[in-house]
């Protein structure tokens, strides 16, 4: 580290306790100007808590915060904002009904006598937008922008207030590959402006693209800091989980004898996807790769009866045309949806209530569901899936990401599940839990369940799937059987929509 530079922000020996948990225990962090400091660690390692302390949302129980060498104490996010710290989260702090320019200059709209000088405002806003490479007009209403464009607005806002430190918590999660490139360029712009950046992401491969240095947190303490891009990813992952990652489970031979579990003739959703000719055999895990917007999610939802769609398919030879999720559930089809907290769980309801929901029909007698039956049923699932809960009555929203996903998975394990559809099952789950989750899926598959797993993380699909299908612009463009799963070829198909030149396509 350069001795001459004073860190923009330094955290020394930060400690924070919540009832029953020590979230941070003596965490140190120093962010230099013009540095992109990546903060990595499993869920619950303390990343978010540290960021919330830096921005003043929490106050630390012990430790100091220094900005440019002087001690500071923030009582609220307003204080940190005034000191030059800007946060860019997934839920952005923008007013959707106002224009981009109004959002950018909300705090100090130019004008006189209480009237806003509209043209001065728009001109200034246009300047800021140009710096982040945005192509939309400052008069656009924020509501009409894509998530990626909204992020640009948020970053431009950081430039507007001449932020000294920008905190980014999973900014890349909702972005497509192209949008990601632009985000990284803008991060570069922040760097050049001498701004310090704290960057949190679950996608570790991003570290090498943006990071100057990575600090690894584990169980509330700093394990170490690693210069980037010279440190190999494997070393960082090992530091995160405190050991070598679990290797992929071995794949059993899938027999293609007998009827396919799922045979899709054609699934059409107007303006979203038109997929033909997919077969999945019992015990098989089939991955669906594709960019955002390739129709992965719509296809899975259509197969589950959750979209207005024309589904021509059969399950073990029996025609299957679901019009409502209940039609799918009745014949043993389950969906683990993309956004766990919005679509998968009732976060305010108990673990037991969540687990039994799809099975209530089977558990009821003449419309009545005895509580004893619910408890026994939920207990069995908690045991079978090794969900770590203090009690069945605990709020689902209070569990860790990995355990929440186990609950969503568990919902489908109570009945005669035959086909499981999973959409981005590992999103927001830490590295260790990801490997465990795929291990669990493999175990479930080995009992004869067929699975379709959609993911934007090819690196996850490759080691765990038997076959990989590639979707592009709502169509199935290529299929990679075992032994032919060349990463470059798959990525090429994902991006161009062109099948690899082989005997057939």
């Amino acid at each position, binding site marked *: 580290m350069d001795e001459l530079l004073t860190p923009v922000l330094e955290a020394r020996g930060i400690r924070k306790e919540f009832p029953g948990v020590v979230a941070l225990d003596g965490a140190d962090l120093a962010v230099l100007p013009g540095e992109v400091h990546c903060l990595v660690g499993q869920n619950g390692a303390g990343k978010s808590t540290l960021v919330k302390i830096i921005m003043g949302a929490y106050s630390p129980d012990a430790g100091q915060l220094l900005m440019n060498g002087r001690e500071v104490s923030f009582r609220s996010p307003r204080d940190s904002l005034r000191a030059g710290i800007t946060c860019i989260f997934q839920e952005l702090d923008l007013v959707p009904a106002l224009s981009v320019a109004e959002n950018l200059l909300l705090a100090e709209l130019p004008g006189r006598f209480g009237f806003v000088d509209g043209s001065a405002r728009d001109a200034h806003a246009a300047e800021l937008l140009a710096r982040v490479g945005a192509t939309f007009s400052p008069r656009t209403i924020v509501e009409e922008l894509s998530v990626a464009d909204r992020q640009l607005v948020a970053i431009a806002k950081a430039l507007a207030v001449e932020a000294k430190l920008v905190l980014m918590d999973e900014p890349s999660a909702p972005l497509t590959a192209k949008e990601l490139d632009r985000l990284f360029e803008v991060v570069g712009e922040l760097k050049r402006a001498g701004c310090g950046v704290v960057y949190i992401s679950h996608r570790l491969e991003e570290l090498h693209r943006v990071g100057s240095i990575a600090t690894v947190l584990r169980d509330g303490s700093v394990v170490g800091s690693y210069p980037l891009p010279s440190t190999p990813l494997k070393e960082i992952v090992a530091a995160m989980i405190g050991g070598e990652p679990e290797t992929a489970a071995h794949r059993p031979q899938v027999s293609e004898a007998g009827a396919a579990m799922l045979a899709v003739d054609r699934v059409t959703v107007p303006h979203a996807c038109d997929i033909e000719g997919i077969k999945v055999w019992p015990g098989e895990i089939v991955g669906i790769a594709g960019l955002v917007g390739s129709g992965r999610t719509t296809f899975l939802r259509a197969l589950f009866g959750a979209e207005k769609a024309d589904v021509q398919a059969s399950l073990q030879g029996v025609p299957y045309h679901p019009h*409502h999720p209940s039609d799918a559930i009745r014949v043993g089809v389950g969906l683990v949806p993309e956004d766990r907290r*919005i679509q998968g769980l*009732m*976060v305010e309801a108990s673990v037991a209530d969540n687990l039994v929901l799809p099975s209530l029909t089977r558990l009821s007698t003449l*419309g009545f569901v005895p509580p004893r039956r619910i*408890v026994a049923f939920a207990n069995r699932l908690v*045991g079978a899936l090794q969900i770590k809960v203090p009690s069945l*009555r605990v709020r689902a929203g209070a569990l860790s990401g990995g355990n929440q996903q186990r609950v969503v998975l568990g919902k489908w394990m109570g009945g005669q599940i035959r086909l499981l559809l999973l959409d981005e099952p590992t999103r927001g789950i830490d590295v260790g839990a990801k490997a465990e989750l795929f291990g669990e899926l493999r175990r479930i598959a080995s009992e004869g369940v067929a699975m379709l797993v959609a993911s934007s993380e090819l690196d996850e699909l490759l080691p765990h799937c038997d076959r990989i299908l590639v979707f592009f612009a709502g169509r199935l463009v290529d299929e990679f059987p075992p032994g032919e799963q060349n990463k470059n070829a798959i990525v090429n198909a994902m991006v161009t929509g062109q099948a690899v030149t082989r005997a057939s396509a």
Partner: protein
Amino acid sequence: MTATQQTAPGGAAKTPVWRTVVEQLLSRPLIVIFVLSIVIASLISPAFLSTRNVFNLLQQSSIIGVISIGMTFVILAAGIDLSVGSVAALGGMVVAILCQDQWPVALAILVAVGAGSLLGLAMGSIVAFTKVPSFIITLGGLTAIRGLTLLLTDGRPVFGVPEELKFLGAGFIGPVPVVGIIFIIVTIVAAIFLKLTRSGRYLYATGGNADAARLSGVPVTLTVAMTFVICSSLAAFGGVLLTAWLEVGQPTASAGAELTAIAAVVLGGTSLFGGKGGVFGTFIAVILLSILSNILNLAGVSPYFQQITTGLVLIGTVLLNWAIARRAAPMA
């Protein structure tokens, strides 16, 4: 399997029911305020706890109580029904008119409640299918149904309520008012429905997270529509009871009942965002509201001041609920 059951969280299931009840009570400030108000009332007037006064309170609470139980269903599914006052008036008028026309009382009640169900079905279907906020649809219902009610008799009240109907509204079995018994039965049946039936669990799931519920196979549209049918049916039934009690069908009756009912449901701890709460809290809250006005009457306080007090108690209790919820769920 046996080993798991001994160690696993299943232990919770073996907690006796009475302990669960006690825990639930303590976590709700409503109960504390309820008990406190009873103590204060009996200090102000020893007559307060007399059998007669207690049953009197029950009688006063029951009609708005029945309406509030219905409102609880809608709010649990994250909706709101502003039309209950108008629907109650319609129910009360229909039963009065049919009785005047010499219809059998039971049939007249059935038709009145059925009219409520149909209106609920209409409003509920619109809300469930279009997802237009129920606030707007039922606000339209409030106005339109009141107009319909006034149209029935050109705004004139209907007299001549038969004895059997009077018994329902003003009668007693021993010392116990019949409406009170009805209120208690409605509450118990509603509680059983909500807690023990599949449809009840679906209702909580829909209110808690409609997206997740749908993806778990819950018939969300049907469930939402059902809550409005239940609410309007109970509102119409409440109107029937009011006619029976007053011995007259008044087309202007129950104006503003929706606000009292919503207040009672919220006071009873049901979340306006849906998915949390129940009819037991509503029951207590309705009685509490009656006790408050009873205390203030006994103390000779002006009715204007009574309104102020009721409003403040509502705000205070909800704030207490909020404070407790905040403490119980720290951000982590």
